[in-house]
């Protein structure tokens, strides 16, 4: 046919521009609503904004006030405790469950669904349910006492020294099933012939896991760390529902601090400064991880 050259040019043009055209609204939206607002928050953190945004430069005043605020340090320390324990236990529990499920057992599908199910709940539901279970007057402690163990106490929820650990418990319960699913997918993706070869060489099952399977899950570890660490740093709803940051401010986390200062105390500048500190924390954790990840990917 005669029209083919111009048609070919048109389709080449479409090939070149269509993807860009289709992607541009998303790109524009994320540029404005993510990076634009990050920049705006950054700007606000250098102003004296109170109830509403004001744009007169105030230098590092808000950061100075933030670093002198003891509540901020409580929140930061809690994030350290919660973040590290949450990630550690999610990894351990998730990996253990994945390895156990990987043993070609019966009813694996059903078990997998059961373990993965907490992920389908929102953190608010998880937090509220655990709040009831951990409440000494009506939860676990009361059940044990009613069963005759009169000396059994489990009052972490109302104990200011231990309340942050209840957040870890609920968080691990919620997320470890998801981690398990990721690890399981990773395990299933490993070539069977490697395992067979190792078996022929006389390696025992634990050795195979320790020396071959788990090391080859390295990329999965990275993904899990990425996902878990940002869940930990931005965690707000779980803590809000479970302890409300209390008793007192003992289980405060930076996200709650930021919300209260920016929106309920009329200290927008201070809230913005704490939000920037959270951003820096995420960047400090994620950038090295992503760098390592891409480097290792290139090497392979």
């Amino acid at each position, binding site marked *: 046919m005669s029209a083919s050259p111009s048609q070919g040019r048109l389709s080449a043009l479409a090939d070149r521009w269509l993807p860009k055209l289709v992607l541009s609204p998303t790109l524009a939206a994320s540029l404005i609503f993510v990076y634009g607002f990050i920049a705006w928050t950054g700007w606000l953190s250098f102003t004296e904004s*109170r*109830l*509403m*945004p004001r744009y007169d430069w105030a230098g590092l005043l808000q950061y100075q*006030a933030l670093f002198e*605020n*003891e*509540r901020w340090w409580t929140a930061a320390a809690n994030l350290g405790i919660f973040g590290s324990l949450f990630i550690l236990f999610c990894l351990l529990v998730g990996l253990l469950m994945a390895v156990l499920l990987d043993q070609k057992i019966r009813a694996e599908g059903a078990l997998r669904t059961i373990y993965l199910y907490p992920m389908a709940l929102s953190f608010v539901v998880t937090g509220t349910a655990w709040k009831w279970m951990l*409440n*000494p*007057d009506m939860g676990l402690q009361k059940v044990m006492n009613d069963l005759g163990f009169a000396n059994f106490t489990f*009052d972490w*929820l*109302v104990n*200011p020294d231990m309340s942050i650990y209840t957040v870890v418990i609920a968080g691990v319960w919620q997320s470890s099933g998801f981690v398990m699913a990721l690890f399981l997918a990773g395990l299933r993706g490993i070539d069977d012939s490697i395992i067979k070869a190792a078996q022929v060489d006389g390696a025992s099952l634990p050795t195979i896991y320790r020396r071959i399977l788990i090391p080859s899950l390295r990329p999965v570890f990275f993904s899990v760390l990425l996902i878990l660490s940002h869940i930990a740093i931005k965690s707000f709803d779980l803590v809000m529902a479970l*302890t*409300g940051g*209390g*008793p*007192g*401010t*003992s289980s405060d986390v930076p996200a709650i601090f930021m919300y*209260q*200062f920016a*929106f*309920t*105390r*009329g*200290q927008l500048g*201070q809230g913005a400064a704490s939000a920037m500190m959270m951003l820096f924390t995420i960047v400090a954790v994620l950038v090295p991880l992503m760098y390592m990840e891409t480097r290792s990917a290139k090497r392979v």
Partner: protein
Amino acid sequence: MKLKSLTLAVMAATLLPAAAFAGDVEVLHWWTSGGEAKSAAELKKMMTAKGHAWKDFAVAGGGGDNAMTALKTRVVSGNPPTAAQIKGPAIQEWGAEGVLADIDAVAKAGNWDKQLPVVVSNVMKYKGKYVAAPVNVHRVNWLWVNPEAFKKAGATVPKTWPEFFAAADKLQKAGIQPVAHGGQPWQDATLFESVALGVGGADYYNKAFVKLDKATLAGPTTVKVFETMAKIKTYIDKGAAGRDWNLATAMVINGKAGMQFMGDWAKGEFTAAGKVPGKDFICTDAPGTQNAFTFNIDSMAMFQQKSPAAVKAQADLAATIMSPAFQEVFNLNKGSIPARLDTPMGKFDDCAKKSSFDMNAAAKSNKLVPSFAHKMAMPSATEGAMVDVISQFMNSSMTPAQATERLAKAGAVR
């Protein structure tokens, strides 16, 4: 001369229809539950009776936090509501943003200066001009007592702190939780301010929590206040952490606990349970605060309006809020007392009558003080910092001396 009066007449003729034309009133509030919603409906009824269209702008949840977020958005977009439920120093903060309307003319016509105690009218003014109208007065320094429980324990209703601790000991021996409390920051602060007023007196309270005088805050009286708090802490059960105030009130209602420190909104819980003041429950001043009065006033701040009709509607709204008829019916529903000193109290119950009488007396003897736990006394930044210290003290092993030092530091936060 003639020409001038003619122009005036023409101007008046053109202006009058505009002034007589009814406008929309949009009121942002979070009176959405039970008696409160009934109270808000009264305002709507009175405004529609005056021929204005009422646009309800109720934003529930978060103790007004959600409403404040909605308000900020509206103000930033240049389309503020007619009025919004804003109270205390927050009125000054909004005034400083330059968005509040001057309703001094309405106030002059209604002679508000005469009808409100000076401490109250000062809160309603920004730079000497009225910008807000008070709706009600809540008294915070109440002690709610279950007389049945007291009788069982052989205790008497306390008037001083030694009497209070004697009664608490008796209650504890009788197996009754002496103090019902909810371990939420604002409740800790509510307890604290009643103790501060009782231990230190109105002068100390004014100096420390209204003028934020550093030496007073760091002084020995504050240490004594914290020592009393530490002692009260031992009479509170462990399950108090995070408990809502109305659940604590329920403990007093059903006799599980003997007393509760709480503002007069607790009365609603008692009456809703069918209890009669004076017989099934007793409202008394927190120990040591006889004749003193910590007030928490809800008010409507007026926002600048563009159209003349809206301005007229706003003036009518302000006048209606301050009218004795509204003040009476609103507060009968809500459980608080009228802000106007001259509202007839005949229909109110004994607790409200006592509250009104005490407010009048306290206003005369300079013992009428703003409640800082309810955002009436200090800038929100300072208030937040202080509440943090108090709630940390209630939930840790911090010593009274340490707490005093940190409270003084919090008092310097602006």
